């Protein structure tokens, strides 16, 4: 059976390897250009915006993780517009693109859910290593700066030293932490934290959960359980469930957003590590396909390196302005 389908692996050819290798390397080095530089290239080359220019632009969008489907749709809209009114030059093309991208993001922006009675409960969820603990710490400081009283819950009882890590952030922001020992039940510590936040009349409770891959059913069920625990004590909570996503994430981000929304009821995205060279194009695809807004962005490791989302600034950075 295998032979007829794929041939035997041992037969893979050796000889051409070297030349191919070198060509590959050369090809890849071209991608060091940012989307902005690529677009500049497209624009400079085209007095008139023609089909070739649009195709180049589509490739540039894909190279920034916007995804094949979303990129194709954006280009289709630009093409339509070109047919109806014409697009005079590259500068206009860039303006239109900026407008479209911003619109996709803005359509999903909505006011934060009303909190009937404090505390406002914010749950941080996401796959491993995206920066949930760091973001929790920064967010605590951000709310403190708005003169709100904040409590944090160390519900990542799984990863080694996650609790200690959050404690350091608690010290830095002057926020208390409800914790248990490593290996404890996350729903139990959450229960304690909810009770504490309620009786102390805290304005905000930030819940740091363990990173988990969205494909692990039992771990996703655990999130669902935590959500139900929250609802038992505070019926309209959690008010926000923020999916923390690394800006370098590729097309898998869509699947993350989809499955975390199913289990945990995600209400928004926090895009982290935007201080690198990745500009988080996947957020555009997520906004378009899953109707989720971006709430905050992380731009560094320092406590103040968190910003409320600004679609204009985000698109400008994506386009390299």
């Amino acid at each position, binding site marked *: *059976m*295998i032979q*007829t*389908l*794929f*041939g035997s*692996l041992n037969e*893979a*050819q050796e000889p051409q*390897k070297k030349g*191919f*290798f070198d*060509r*590959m*390397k050369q*090809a*890849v*080095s*071209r*991608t*060091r250009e940012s989307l902005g530089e690529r677009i500049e290239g497209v624009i400079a080359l085209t007095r008139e915006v023609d089909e070739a220019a649009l195709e180049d632009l589509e490739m540039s969008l*894909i*190279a*920034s*993780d916007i*995804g*094949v489907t979303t990129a194709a749709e954006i280009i289709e809209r630009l093409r339509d517009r070109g047919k109806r009114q014409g697009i005079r030059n590259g500068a206009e093309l860039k303006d239109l693109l900026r407008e479209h991208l911003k619109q996709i993001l803005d359509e999903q922006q909505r006011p934060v859910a009303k909190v009937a009675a404090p505390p406002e409960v914010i749950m941080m969820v996401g*796959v*491993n*290593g*995206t*920066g949930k603990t760091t973001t929790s710490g920064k967010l605590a400081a951000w709310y403190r700066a708005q003169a709100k009283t904040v409590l944090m819950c160390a519900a990542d009882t799984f*990863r*080694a*030293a*996650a609790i*200690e*890590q959050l*404690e*350091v952030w608690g010290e830095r922001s002057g926020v208390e932490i409800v914790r248990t020992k490593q290996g404890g039940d996350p729903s139990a510590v959450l229960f304690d934290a909810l009770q504490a936040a309620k009786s102390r009349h805290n304005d905000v409770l930030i819940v740091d959960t363990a990173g988990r*891959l*969205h*494909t*692990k*059913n039992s771990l996703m069920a655990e999130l669902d359980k935590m959500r139900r625990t929250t609802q038992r004590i505070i019926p309209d909570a959690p008010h926000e469930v923020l999916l923390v996503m*690394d*800006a*370098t*994430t*590729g*097309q*898998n*981000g869509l*699947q993350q957003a989809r499955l975390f929304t199913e289990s945990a009821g995600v209400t928004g995205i926090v895009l982290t*590590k935007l201080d*690198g*060279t*990745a500009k988080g194009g*996947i957020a555009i695809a997520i906004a378009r396909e899953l109707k989720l807004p971006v709430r905050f962005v992380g731009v560094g*490791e320092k406590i103040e390196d968190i910003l409320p989302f600004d679609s204009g600034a985000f698109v400008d950075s994506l386009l390299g302005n």
Partner: protein
Amino acid sequence: MFENLSEKLQRAFKNLRGQGTMTEENIQEALREIRVALLEADVNLNVVKDLIDHIREKAIGQEVMTALSPTEQVIKIVHDELVTLLGKDTARFQFASRPPTVILMAGLQGSGKTTTSGKLAAWLQKGGHRPMLVSVDVYRPAAREQLRVVAQSIKANIYQGDTKGEPAGTPLVERLAKEARREAVITGCDTLIVDTAGRLHIDSDLMDEMAKLKALLSPQEILFVADAMTGQDAVRSAEEFHRRLALTGIVLTKMDGDARGGAALSIRHVTGQPVKFIGMGEKPDAFEPFHPDRIVGRILGHGDIMSLMERAEEKLDRKKSEEFARKALSGDGFSLEDFRDQLRQIKKLGSLQSIMKMLPSVGPFAGMQQMADQVDEKQFTRVEAIINSMTQKERNHHEIISGSRRKRIANGSGTTVQEVNQLLRQYAQMRKMFKGMGKGGMMQRRAMGMLGGMKGMGR
């Protein structure tokens, strides 16, 4: 969900049958589908472009074979191309002639360096080595504590050191690294795994620190730890790390998720270094040497069906399987006797769970991987017992199984009449399903011939 590339290609090729050779024109659509599949798997755009050129070159002028469908022919080209690209290097490790061998872990924040350091130590221990761990991540809160806990859980040696209130910075990092190497020599550890702080490739201060660490320790291995979910940006970070450090290998983490892992191709080709290991979970032993064909299967949406097919080839009685497929797809349908044969054959392949986990996560098997954890293996035995309790005649002519016969069969097999009824119902459904399957693709048909019996039995 993504569609399997094979399915897409089948559509793209529906007009190709009956034509003698593949030409620029008639494979155009197929190439477009391949391009989209690779991009959706996060393979870097420029790598994709070159791959497509290469695949086009190879495909054009090929005769359309009779033994293979055009789809299978092109899939084979794509598959071979990707495997060649990834190389055949597996986890070969450089060891120092004079111990300790130093392994430097490098990567962006959150890629999984600390977890991987622990796994690598456990892997080395299993191979009879005596590794020592040290964390020089003096920046992230509790990072050093994290490695300590990890080391403790696998009973590995760790050099804890003392920061002595020294501020976080390169001098402290260098001191800890130097002390750790001395400690490794003194305690007779043959390898030293140095876990470093995550850093952005554009952070020149921290990249300088990395270069200094390299100069200080002259490591035999510098492993770039990368998240399998990384998108197009993978080439930029990998290239810069490689430019500054001359990496010797790649570890791809979080491969237990459903990311296609196209970044592996991109990183491999910007650095020219082999992927040596993959991380498959959070447990210390969820760590495997890398097999190029496995990730190629994933990128193409084939799951690990290669290994499954290999296993099938080795264990199954081919003639019986083909006989079964022929009967099942023809007007007569298969008998319960045939069905039992198939069950016995499948059992030879291993547990149902392990088989289901190797199926592609897309296409006709969508959702089966997820179902694997819920499968009750005992069901299998019970079904076989029920069929065993039937007479030869009953097995070949299921329609004669009346109420009283059902009762007898239930008694004989230690099951209930309800279970017997359920089996008969599922059998009838399956027969119908197979008969209607004549139009499916070759691979789908074959795989179903082998595995189709399981679908109704998971609950």
